[in-house]
């Protein structure tokens, strides 16, 4: 009896708290169809993430407004972000935030996008692995550092577009270990992988799901993971973190979402709530598991702080590589 009233009491308290929160953060749904603007082509990670969210939101009835994922690809996501920046206050368009949205303005010397948009949420993170070719003499990150110190610039990295995640991570590696690597940019991550698998370069970065495939097929040898801790999967458990190997680099690829400038805070809060709910669905959790992604979601002002921190990292590294304008 006592126990029951306690439970009821807790419930009542929770109820009071959540209504209180709802009052504190006014929410309002937008009207009409929604566009998720994606700066990558169909099939790129940002595209797949937004399509997954759109599908879950519409199919589960979480969001009644029909959602269209529109690829406005090209020119380092600037086609997409310029489109959204041109719609201040618009309630029917959200911008997908991937690293080019941060780096393209830095490289081109145009005003920051992150400082203008309305932050909504950090959605998904992907940890990164460093690979070398299966028959390489390198067996650890230390071997790479030693080789790159002995002969600066002789160790080659095949990665995605210039100024992208792979390039930034290469820059972080260089500055932290005091070495020089040769970074070879490619039009896409797939093209970079072809260069690596063809045995043309020594190093290549991969996401966990790409990495597991390469380990299973024996087409690559993992040297390091750039997370704070090791992964627990059997194939990855013995891959040491970069930090363990004396190179203090922790770097995670992430994707987020934001609204146009001057978006009504009530609508932004509504979206943040919807993204949080969608992320808690079984369907989304299963999808995360399949792709070995993480979702440490933060929303609104916290997301804004997260984006600002990451922007500073990008700016520092790009300035050091000499790409910032």
């Amino acid at each position: 009896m006592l126990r029951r009233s306690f439970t009821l009491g807790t419930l009542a308290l929770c109820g009071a708290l959540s209504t209180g929160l709802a009052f504190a953060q006014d929410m309002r749904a937008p009207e009409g169809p929604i566009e998720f603007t994606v700066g990558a082509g169909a099939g790129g990670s940002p595209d797949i993430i937004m399509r997954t969210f759109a599908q879950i939101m519409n199919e589960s009835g979480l969001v009644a407004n029909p959602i269209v994922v529109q690829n406005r690809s090209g020119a380092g996501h600037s086609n997409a972000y310029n489109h959204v920046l041109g719609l201040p206050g618009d309630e029917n368009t959200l911008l997908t935030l991937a690293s080019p949205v941060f780096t393209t303005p830095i490289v081109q010397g145009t005003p920051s996008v992150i400082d203008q948009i309305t932050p909504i949420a950090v959605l998904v993170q992907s940890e990164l692995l460093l690979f070398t070719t299966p028959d390489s003499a390198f067996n650890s990150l230390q071997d790479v550092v030693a080789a790159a110190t002995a002969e600066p610039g002789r160790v080659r990295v095949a990665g995605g577009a210039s100024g992208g995640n792979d390039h930034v991570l290469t820059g972080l590696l260089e500055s932290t270990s005091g070495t020089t690597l040769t970074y070879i940019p490619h039009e896409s991550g797939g093209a970079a992988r072809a260069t690596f698998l063809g045995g043309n370069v020594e190093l290549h970065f991969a996401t966990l799901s790409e990495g597991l495939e390469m380990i299973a097929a024996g087409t690559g040898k993992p040297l390091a993971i750039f997370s704070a801790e090791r992964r627990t999967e059997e194939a990855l458990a013995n891959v040491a973190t970069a930090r363990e190997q004396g190179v203090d680099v922790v770097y995670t690829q992430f994707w987020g979402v934001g609204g146009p400038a001057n978006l009504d805070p009530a609508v932004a809060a509504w979206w943040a709530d919807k993204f949080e709910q969608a992320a808690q669905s079984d369907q989304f959790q299963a999808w995360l598991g399949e792709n070995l992604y993480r979702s440490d979601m933060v929303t609104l002002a916290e997301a804004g702080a997260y984006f600002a921190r990451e922007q500073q990292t990008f700016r520092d590294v790009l300035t050091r590589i000499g790409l910032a304008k």
Partner: protein
Amino acid sequence: MFEQLLIGFGTALDPQNLLFIFLGVLIGQVVGALPGLGPSAGMALLLPLTFGLEPVTAVMMLAGIMYGAQYGGTLTSVLINVPGEASGVMTAVDGNAMARKGRAGAALSISAIGSFIAGIGAVAAVAVLAPPLASFGLKFNAPEYFLLALLGILAMGSLGASPIKSLAAGLLGLMIALIGVDPLTGAPRLNFDSPVLVKGIDFIPVAIGVFGIAEVLASLERMDKVQPIRTRLRDMWLTAEDWTKCRFSILRGGVIGLFVGIMPGAGASIASLLAYLTERRFSSTPETFGKGAIDGVAAAEAANNAASHGATIPMLSLGIPGSASTAILLAALILHGIRPGPQLMAQESALVWGLIASMFIGNIILLILNLPLAPVFAALLRIPYVFLAPAILGISLVGAYAATLDMATVWMSLGFGVLGYLMMKFDIPRPPLVLALVLASLMEMSLRQALLLSFGDPMIFVQRPISAILLAAVCFALLLPFVSAFRRRRSMAGNRSGS
């Protein structure tokens, strides 16, 4: 393996799957025919609709759009000289010349047959040889891509009557491609601070302008004289002579297309260009090339369809997309919870073999769709040009808008229409301009990547075996005109001294 293929056919022949294969190839046929809306755009549009389907059904349908578009793209290339995709430029050259002679039906028929034979051959190669072909494809990298693109650019010199004019057009194409963004570093260049030029100039407004709109402009000045193309029914069909001429063209084009297709960086446009140029070497009537050579059409069409199927090889066996379309196929797999990669063929063998079987079936459906309809489509040209011209203009401009959803593309197409008109007036061939534009970024990117790979040492082009062979081909292409000029002069001198 044969057993697995049979199981694959079992999956593909399931009524529901069959329906979606049919839908896929039908949509492919339509998006291919519309300039501006290529297979990758069509696949991206329909991707969300496949969410409710089984993964295998979804992939079968999306793949259908991919190769269906190679059949559909032929229509506008042949009938109105507007290639909807870069891989259709070579088809337009001779296909449209044939249409002007009243042989549009034959051009469409041989395209369908060529695409079909090459498509089936390429699928068979996918089924039997995917892993070894994929690892062969990996031997091609930056140095080889650069030489391949260079070979294409040089060979364009022979696309018109005057090599200088053709190369000048090619050079102009390369220059246009420089506008926008440095492909390697992402740094903006040559955009004159114009927001339109920041994105660079894409294939679509250029092709729609210099082909479609220029054609209409040129016809304005002779509107009263233009007669509808007269087609007699017997000109619609292929003759026995056509077939004998094209048998081996299809074979050669298909093989070239397949090999270019398996390289993860090359693409169907290089495939059709190389197949066309190779075919002219082999043809018994090389002088007809550019004026309506049916074997040229057959080779180019066989090559682009084989390349589009070949691109599934690196995708299925390595998880690397070889083209924009296969990138979307990969995305579809990921969205359906299937992890692409080297183990796909082992772990998802039912899906992979179902897909392979569906490509056999899809190609058969496309042949059945296209052969009887070829004369029907060709009959469109009987419409008087006064009615046809506004339709061409309309399709062109809508296509330009649909490609980017931006009016700037429409204005750009009109600008390039004027350029194309001037090129026609000065008798400068237009295909080199468009092809060079397409090849430029591959050429620039791969040259710079190759030199990064070698730490700046140009010997990389000689040290790699395949690269060395391609370099020899480039040298041969450069020296050939001088050698033949020298021999011609010698033989003329010989004749004079003899007489």
